[in-house]
């Protein structure tokens, strides 16, 4: 397995070089839907981190027992279990947040970031690598959600975490907290990330 990335490489890759949102363009649906405020975005990022870590660790532990044609079933089963636990936990201890996020928590089951990590990393590499991969990807995902949510909440309401940070005279750009704001912000952020990348590689003329 000399060609497989090490634990540290996996960890760093997840944050920026292979950022799940900005580089892999995975998990777009929750990225667009729950980033109208910082609180739902952070809750979502935490839920995904929990599921990703648990699913990666379990998958890695049983990787030698997996049969190629049954592996997706096992991944889905594992992911669904941890998503259900996360969903119930939020409903029990963060009831209002659970109502705000509604079906987006159960929909983590079909979030392709997680199944992609199980397939690419956890089903091929040892537990430690899989775990650090999960943590790295989760941080990358969290950063992406938080960056989009911060822009949308600040421009849309003049607030951050519900606290006024722009002058009260700021004309709230309501469109930013509505669905179009999600697409506009994501598009501009993707462009920005690509532009920085090209500049770094000297491809920009």
């Amino acid at each position, binding site marked *: 397995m000399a060609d497989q990335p090490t634990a540290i490489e996996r960890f760093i890759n997840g944050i920026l070089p292979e950022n799940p949102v900005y580089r892999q363009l995975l998990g777009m649906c929750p990225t667009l839907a729950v980033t109208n405020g910082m609180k739902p975005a952070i809750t979502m990022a935490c839920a995904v981190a929990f599921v990703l870590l648990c699913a990666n660790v379990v998958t890695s532990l*049983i990787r030698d027992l997996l*049969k190629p044609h049954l592996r997706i079933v096992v991944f889905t*089963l594992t992911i669904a279990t941890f998503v259900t636990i996360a969903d119930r936990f939020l409903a*029990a*201890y963060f009831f209002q947040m659970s109502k705000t996020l*509604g*079906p987006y928590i159960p929909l983590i089951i079909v979030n392709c970031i997680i199944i992609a990590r199980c397939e690419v990393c956890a089903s091929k590499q040892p537990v430690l690598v899989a775990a650090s991969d999960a943590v790295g990807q989760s941080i990358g995902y969290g950063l992406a959600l938080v960056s989009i949510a911060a822009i949308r909440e600040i421009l849309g309401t003049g607030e951050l975490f519900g606290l006024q940070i722009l002058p009260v005279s700021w004309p709230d750009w309501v469109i930013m907290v509505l*669905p179009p704001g999600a697409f506009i912000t994501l598009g501009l952020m993707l462009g920005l990330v690509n532009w920085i990348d090209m500049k770094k590689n000297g491809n920009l003329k």
Partner: protein
Amino acid sequence: MGKFKNSNLMQAWLVLLLSLVFSVTLAAVHIRLAPVIEENKTRETMKNIPALVTGKDNNADLKGEPLSIKQRTIRAQKKGMVKSYAVYDAFDNSGNVMGHVVKASGQGYADKIELLIGLDATASTITGLFILDQKETPGLGNKIIEDTWRNQFKGKSSYAPLVAKKGKSVSENEIDAVSGATISSRSVTEIINIAIGDVKMDIALIPESYNMENK
């Protein structure tokens, strides 16, 4: 023996074992968390009863009308099945019935929908609707939780079954369906129709045992 080893059942042993392990885990989580979730829902129910009964907005000041709320269960027999409903009766200061709230649930488009139906004292008019739990499609079906849609139910008679219609509703018992979410809308009206039909006989009869209680 080789035949058995290659059988579908033997190939799937890991899937079967994991299903078992995960089921047990989820059952344990459920046993631990279900009472807490139930408590959250009860708290939310209690919070919404005054607005449902008086027909006022949730944000409206209700301090002028302190209500005392009592809970009972109404059972309805249908085709040999017994269905029970949690019913909350709201009383004003002098002990007059202000109205009732029925908790009902049924299948929606995606998952179970749980809702609270507010009825006036004689249970002849719907005074409000609140969606307690739903997992309908975001952007379409989940619009059933919005005030503008729910407010259509206020003032509807509870004698005629409600119908969710596409386009503008015309007659008295019609509800304007959420566009793009006819099934979610129809599920809500169905749940309400069934629940009202089931509790109708008993709801206006306030049990005498209430008077014995000192609360």
